[in-house]
């Protein structure tokens, strides 16, 4: 087996553990949510593969449910994906292989999301350089495949079970983000943004449901940022 092939294999094997189980749970929730919102099974799967960002997919469905305008929806989804910029910028140099074209980088970037980014950042330093990109593609490609399959399962489950279980499936995605957001806080600034956003979200929803996601993000996020700057200045 070549070094590259073993890289793909290693990525696939490592993805098919806890990462696949966690993503699977999240995307079963997403699939059932999409079904409840009237998405066809094809649209559910295509949205998963092309957007490939669960927060953005959740925003898309929830904003459609309150009849937000298309402009507001696209703006909110695009802004929620902003984390991919610093993530991609930090991952690309780690995986860089001078023998590969720049196009490979742009194609690999299609697969970047939180789980695969974290795995590639952690694993790459142990791997020889030619093996890093194959490892990432093996890992992230497996994540996409498992998630798409689970979205189909979730879509099917939404209609097949009694209401009590369907409520449980609808609860999967919010509780998934509730735990991941709180459990993953690493900096004071991130904690501030979470608290400000959590307060602003329901408040703006009461004022204007259609624009609430976008407004809560901008106002809550900016307030958190300003509090951090202000407190840094007074303590410094």
């Amino acid at each position, binding site marked *: 087996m070549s070094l590259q092939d073993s890289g793909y294999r290693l990525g696939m094997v490592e993805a098919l553990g806890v990462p696949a189980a966690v993503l699977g749970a999240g995307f079963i929730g997403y699939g059932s949510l999409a079904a409840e919102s009237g998405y066809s099974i094809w649209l559910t799967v295509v949205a998963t593969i092309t957007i490939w960002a669960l927060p953005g997919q959740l925003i898309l469905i929830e904003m459609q449910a309150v009849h937000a305008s298309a402009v507001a929806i696209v703006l909110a989804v695009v802004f929620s994906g902003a984390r991919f910029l610093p993530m991609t910028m930090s991952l690309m140099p780690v995986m860089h292989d001078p023998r590969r074209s720049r196009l490979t980088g742009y194609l690999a970037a299609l697969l970047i999301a939180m789980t695969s980014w974290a795995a590639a950042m952690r694993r790459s330093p142990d791997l020889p350089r030619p093996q890093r990109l194959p490892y990432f593609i093996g890992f992230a490609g497996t994540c996409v495949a498992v998630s798409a399959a689970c979205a189909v399962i979730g879509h099917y489950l939404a209609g097949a079970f009694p*209401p009590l279980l369907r409520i449980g499936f609808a609860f999967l995605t919010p509780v998934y983000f509730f735990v991941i957001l709180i459990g993953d806080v690493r900096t004071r600034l991130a904690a501030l943004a979470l608290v400000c956003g959590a307060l602003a979200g329901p408040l703006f929803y009461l004022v204007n449901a259609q624009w609430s996601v*976008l407004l809560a993000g901008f106002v809550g996020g900016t307030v958190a940022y300003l509090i951090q700057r202000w407190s840094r200045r007074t303590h410094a």
Partner: protein
Amino acid sequence: MPELWLLVFACAAGTYLWRGLGVLLSGRIKVDSELFNWIACVAYAMVAGLVMRIIAMPTGMLAQSPLVDRVAACALALVAYYMSRRNLFVGVCSGVAALIVSGYLRSL
């Protein structure tokens, strides 16, 4: 519904914009600038705000469960997550199971 497909593709293109820009800019500008901090804040706050709103004021199926059950299930999910040494899968499943069980007990 062609509009729905168009909307999904617009969202997909907009999301890829950040990834593509990341490839373009990698190694050229610093990641830890003030602008990035602000963008990260807005992105975090937006998702946190939406999740909190869904838990507090859901639409659809979830609206059939009482608020107190949803809040208790979230708290339990968090406790299970930390008690299982930060296993996200255990945390999420505990929260969902708690909401289903509480709904069942109420229906008795």
